[in-house]
């Protein structure tokens, strides 16, 4: 720092692009304006509109809304069904995040070692990610069929299940429904995390491994002392992205279990949907949305800090 201050100061105009005249400086605004207009209309405005609605009894039926203060919020915090939905969301996040992180590391490590069939593996692991959710659920409901489905058939064949008592999966009680959706989700979305890890692995300089081999490190030590520490930042990013994605779970859960059995798999967005579009209570659904919103916001702040750290 001291060295720098001693150097003669460079005029700012020489470093930055010419932005001398007033006219030029407004030009930039015209470039960003179209996006900002969209952004204001479809993101900023609904954000505040939703907050406003949460203090009203606005209804989907179109009758005039009136201000009811914190009533929706009090109701939300006392609503057992809302807590249940929030808990189920947390449960799904808790179950789905570890396999989606750990398995994607394992897959990426494998592919990084088996480079000659890398094209095939990348294709195999990432292909499900581009399949629409309704197709994914169609296929998995078919696989999960209790009587004569693919999964039960092989479980019986392996002697893990009695042929007379078929396991019910997507409507299975005691968390089975939730786990069925977790497995489907892992199969469907793992490819993205996998590619992030694969890309990170391929930036590691091979000479690091050569050096440690000469020092007598085996692959296990290399994995724990070199590879995983070098992947730390990728892991942090993948975990945060995954948490946010998992907290927003709706599509596959809604289609596969419909929230059942006994609301065991009814998640937050599903309940928001029910309150708003089936119960017609826009005001109350907005308050519920904001609870989820704040939760995701907290995690997003970590994400934002990760992003901005990279800027340095």
């Amino acid at each position: 720092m001291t060295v720098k201050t001693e150097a003669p100061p460079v005029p700012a105009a020489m470093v930055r692009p010419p932005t001398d005249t007033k006219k030029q400086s407004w030009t930039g605004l015209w470039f960003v304006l179209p996006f900002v207009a969209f952004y204001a209309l479809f993101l900023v405005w609904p954000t505040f509109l939703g907050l406003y609605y949460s203090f009203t009894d606005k209804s989907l039926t179109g009758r005039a809304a009136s201000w009811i203060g914190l009533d929706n919020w009090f109701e939300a915090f006392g609503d057992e069904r809302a807590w249940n939905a929030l808990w189920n969301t947390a449960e799904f996040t808790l179950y789905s995040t570890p396999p989606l992180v750990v398995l994607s590391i394992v897959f990426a490590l494998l592919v990084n070692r088996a480079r000659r069939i890398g094209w095939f593996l990348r294709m195999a692991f990432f292909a499900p990610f581009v399949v629409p959710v309704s197709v994914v659920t169609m296929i998995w409901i078919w696989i999960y069929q209790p009587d004569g489905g693919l999964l039960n058939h092989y479980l019986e064949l392996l002697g893990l299940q009695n042929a007379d008592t078929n396991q019910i999966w997507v409507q299975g009680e005691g968390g089975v429904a939730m786990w069925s959706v977790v497995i489907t989700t892992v199969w469907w979305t793992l490819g993205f995390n996998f590619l992030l890890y694969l890309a990170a692995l391929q930036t590691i300089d091979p000479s690091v491994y050569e050096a440690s081999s000469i020092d007598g490190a085996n692959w296990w030590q290399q994995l724990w002392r070199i590879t995983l520490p070098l992947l730390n930042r990728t892991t942090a990013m993948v975990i945060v992205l995954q948490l946010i994605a998992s907290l927003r779970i709706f599509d596959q859960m809604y289609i596969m279990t419909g929230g059942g059995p006994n609301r065991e798999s009814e998640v937050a967005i599903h309940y928001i949907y029910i309150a708003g579009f089936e119960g017609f209570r826009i005001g109350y659904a907005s308050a519920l949305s904001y609870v989820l919103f704040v939760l995701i916001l907290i995690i997003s702040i970590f994400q934002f800090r990760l992003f901005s750290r990279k800027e340095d």
Partner: protein
Amino acid sequence: MTAVQERSTAAEAGRPTAVRRRRLFKWRGKKPSVGAVIVYIAAGLLGVFWLLPLVWAVSTSLKSETEASLGQDIHWIPREWSIEGYKVLFERGDHLTWMLNSTVVSTIVTVLTLVLCTLAAYGFSRFDFPGKNIVFGSIIAGLMVPGQALIIPLFDLVNALHMGGTYWGLALPQVVAPVMVFILKRFFDGIPRDYEEAAKLDGAGHFRILWNVILPVSGPIMAAVGIFTFIGSWNNFLWPMLIATDPSMMTLPVGLQAVAGGYGLFYAQTMASAVLGAAPLLIVFLVFQKRIVEGVAGVGLK
């Protein structure tokens, strides 16, 4: 044996380490170690295993309804190949409508996202204007707003704008992607300004510079942003489900879901519609595989 030994000792006398290393390397190249073989077999099996659900869907779709039905034993290769399931779907024609709707909506979303985000990113990257930091800061804050939590007011807004059940109502709310502005700006920031200065001296305007100088070197990142926007929009479910209640306006994922229950016990038909639903993007993916893989790397790491 002795001859070989003699030769190797003779060579070692000359340049011992170099020769030994080269021989070791060659041996490795020809005959992979046991560990490598295990890794290849494990990885290959895992890859095949991961594709099984898709293979099972294709297999079921190519059976006759009786052969596909639940009472039958599990077999992967149809005993009697049949495209009955596909025929029924094509006769009904819904799929083509939904595919067309999805194509229109995803194309609008992708084109608008690319245009708006590129202009905005260029503006933020190359200009100073009053309020720039506030505007950019608020867009960065938008990174943290989860879209799904906004569906209620957004639905209300789109209906108030009389866009409910239209392509615009389906597409426009999906266009706002602060993360794409952020990614593109970061990329534009890294492009050296020398070329632009030269172009400016030649009298080129800002749009010219963007078009002729910036965009030609931004191919891969634009492709990544475009492909991901397209995939995201094509597979979007919740928003189109809320907006497109009329079957003629449904996108592919919503339409498939709407009729999924209606197939009842026609599993060959169900799986045929699954295969048709998966096919367009799978083909796009296979064609652009390299771009997509690089895109994830670029978006994730840079």
